[in-house]
């Protein structure tokens, strides 16, 4: 850890400057750069070979990519939905969905007055500028789109130029398929095979966009890469695909997501993220997930079924996942590491908060294949309201994984007595020298703690936020600085209304 502490302040400056300018933009100024999505741009409803062909054509993909997708689709037809996770939801009808530029199922709000007041209150507390709130809430206004903002920011171009000077590629996956086909052919699905699981296979057939990052040998990426700044970010929609490759001796830190809650018309989200780290390379991947969790009864919330996996392919490589999960009606997500290279290391730091009717089933897998591989898991689950929060983790050592080491710490905090927290660890060792340690605790915020805090002047909500932030401190410190403060605020807001 501490690797990004010594990244030059350049990163700080650029990030701050970029955030500021993106935020201060007057979107109307960019209306001419805005591509209107016209009616004919919509794929036919439902999932079929035609849908797959349509998407591929829209993206101007080469034949090999279309073939790849069609193969995935054929495979998908043989699979059925997994049922092992502790989540419950009405059956999803894949034929009743759009896979490209979905039309609004309900008329889009035409002003913020029509948006869920709870969502607005949250924007207010996060201090999000008015115009940005409209975009996030999906308010329909002529000639305004978040894409326009992103595409037209000259600072983003500067940012990209900065990166290309050191040979880093950071672009959309669609662009990469056209511009860097040999890399895509070599690495796509090399970590998450097409047939990996139901959602990953579906994603392979119909993914619409995502990020591509390539860090050449020996290069330390001079700034945090963030989806927030990614150029050409079209509405990536339900099926995002991300691929990050770190060549030998390189380093990159990637941030995904945003603390602002995003509303999206499409209920099902099934992203795939693949990371590849070669010898001595290090990838840090941080996520703040705050999709719309639905109203107080859980209606309208997003189902988030994600497959994220990192391959520590090279010796002494390192992949670390840090995630803050506060949104979505349902989260099904297990960022994992395959510790293939000798001496490689995997880390998973997670904060999963559930409130209201949210259901979270999340955790990680650490697959030790190489010698002297090590992994560390720190998972903090916080359940409030009527929510259900499950940690599901697997640690395994292959027969050749001599001296594999794992440490797992899994803590749950319950707020109130209508929620549930569960820990489901799977441990599997085929090598006698492996040492796996697992610690788990479940605690509640006690009435005495609440009274003590209140006696010192904190309101119930402030007290819960303070105690929860204390509870997740070990994980918070692994987040990049600029995310940390926002995340603390987000935690407080996510738990509002959880007491009293």
């Amino acid at each position, binding site marked *: 850890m501490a690797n990004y502490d010594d990244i030059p302040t350049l990163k700080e400056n650029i990030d701050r400057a970029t955030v500021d300018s993106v935020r201060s933009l007057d979107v109307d100024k960019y209306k001419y750069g805005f591509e209107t999505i016209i009616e004919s741009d919509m794929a036919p409803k439902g999932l079929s070979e035609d849908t797959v062909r349509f998407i591929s054509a829209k993206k101007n993909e080469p034949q090999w990519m279309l073939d790849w997708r069609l193969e995935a689709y054929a495979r998908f037809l043989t699979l059925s939905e997994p049922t092992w996770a502790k989540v419950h939801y009405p059956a999803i009808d894949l034929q009743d969905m759009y896979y490209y530029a979905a039309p609004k199922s309900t008329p889009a709000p035409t002003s913020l007055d029509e948006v869920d007041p709870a969502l607005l209150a949250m924007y207010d507390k996060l201090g999000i500028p008015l115009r940005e709130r409209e975009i996030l809430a999906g308010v329909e206004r002529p000639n305004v789109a978040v894409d326009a903002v992103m595409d037209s920011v000259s600072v983003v171009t500067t940012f990209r130029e900065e990166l290309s000077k050191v040979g880093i590629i950071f672009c959309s996956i669609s662009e990469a398929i056209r511009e860097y086909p040999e890399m895509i052919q070599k690495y796509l699905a090399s970590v998450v095979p097409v047939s990996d699981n139901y959602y990953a296979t579906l994603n392979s057939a119909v993914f619409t966009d995502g990020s591509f990052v390539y860090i050449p040998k020996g290069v330390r990426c001079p700034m945090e890469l963030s989806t927030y700044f990614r150029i050409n970010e079209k509405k990536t929609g339900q099926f995002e695909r991300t691929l990050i490759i770190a060549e030998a001796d390189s380093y990159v830190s990637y941030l995904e997501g945003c603390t602002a809650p995003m509303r999206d018309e499409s209920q099902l989200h099934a992203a795939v993220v693949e990371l590849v780290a070669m010898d001595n390379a290090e990838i840090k991947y941080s996520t703040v997930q705050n999709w719309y969790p639905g109203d107080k009864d859980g209606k309208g919330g997003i189902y988030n079924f994600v497959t994220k996996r990192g391959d520590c392919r090279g010796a002494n490589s390192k992949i670390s996942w840090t995630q803050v999960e506060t949104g979505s009606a349902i989260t099904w997500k297990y960022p994992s590491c395959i510790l293939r290279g000798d001496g490689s290391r995997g880390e998973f730091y997670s904060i999963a908060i559930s409130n209201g009717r949210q259901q979270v089933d999340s955790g990680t897998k650490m697959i030790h294949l190489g010698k002297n591989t090590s992994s560390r898991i720190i998972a903090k689950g916080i359940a409030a309201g009527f929510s259900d929060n499950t940690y599901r983790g697997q640690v395994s050592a292959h027969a050749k994984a001599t001296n594999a080491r794992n440490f797992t710490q899994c803590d749950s905090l319950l707020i109130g007595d209508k929620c549930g927290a569960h820990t489901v660890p799977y441990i599997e060792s085929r090598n006698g020298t492996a040492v796996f340690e697992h610690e788990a605790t479940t605690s509640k915020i*006690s*009435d005495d703690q609440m009274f*003590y805090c209140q006696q010192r*002047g904190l309101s119930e909500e*402030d007290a819960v936020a*303070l*105690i929860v*932030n204390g509870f997740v401190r070990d994980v918070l410190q692994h987040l990049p600085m600029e995310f940390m403060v926002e995340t603390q605020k987000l935690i407080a807001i996510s738990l509002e209304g959880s007491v009293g």
Partner: protein
Amino acid sequence: MTTPILEIRNLHARIEDREILKGVNLIIPAGEVHAIMGRNGSGKSTLSYVLAGKDDYEVTEGEILLNGESILEMEPNERAAAGVFLAFQYPIEIPGVATMTFLKAAMNAQRKARGEAELLTPEFMRLVKEAGTQLQVDTAMLKRPLNVGFSGGEKKRAEIMQMALLKPALCVLDETDSGLDIDALQVVSKGVNALRSDSRSMLVITHYQRLLNHIVPDVVHVFSDGRIVESGDKDLALQLEAKGYADFDGAAA
């Protein structure tokens, strides 16, 4: 006559179905320090909790006035912002929350509730340093989670430090002397005495006359079976020390 900081009138309170406070009457004028002594289980801590507004207790009769205003309908945090501070007999551990973080959160919450501006970090640090030096709470301790793994004496010093920073109108000290060694007793007493002022009142609950040599009270009350049964000057404490509580049992019955 000016309004006393604290006035308790015929206070009755119960927990679950058991009545613990059975008609407490007490007036503490501004600037005065009153001591309460009484047998184990007589209801002293209960009185302090009821003053601070702990949920578990139900006030069935009577009134509590702070600066002439009833506080019975106020939440504990509102009472705190209005100036009630309770130094706990058993301070509660708050895992993961650095003492420093907690102090800042508490001070700013109270300031906010009173419509004052939040403290800026340099000013906060200056105040913490000052209070820390006086109560011998070092920086290493301030970085540790509040009360977690603190020794008995450290917990009590941390309580008084919070009191010094929050500058309450009414300080309620519940057995602050228990668990303190001789030197720590001096340090804590000095800290408490430094806070004595014309605009502040204190209620000091203790079992030992010794504390009252350091924090000299204006009035001493004897508490028995949920009410005050005798009041006097500081010599009453000496008398109790010599003879015990037997003389006062059933005195008010």
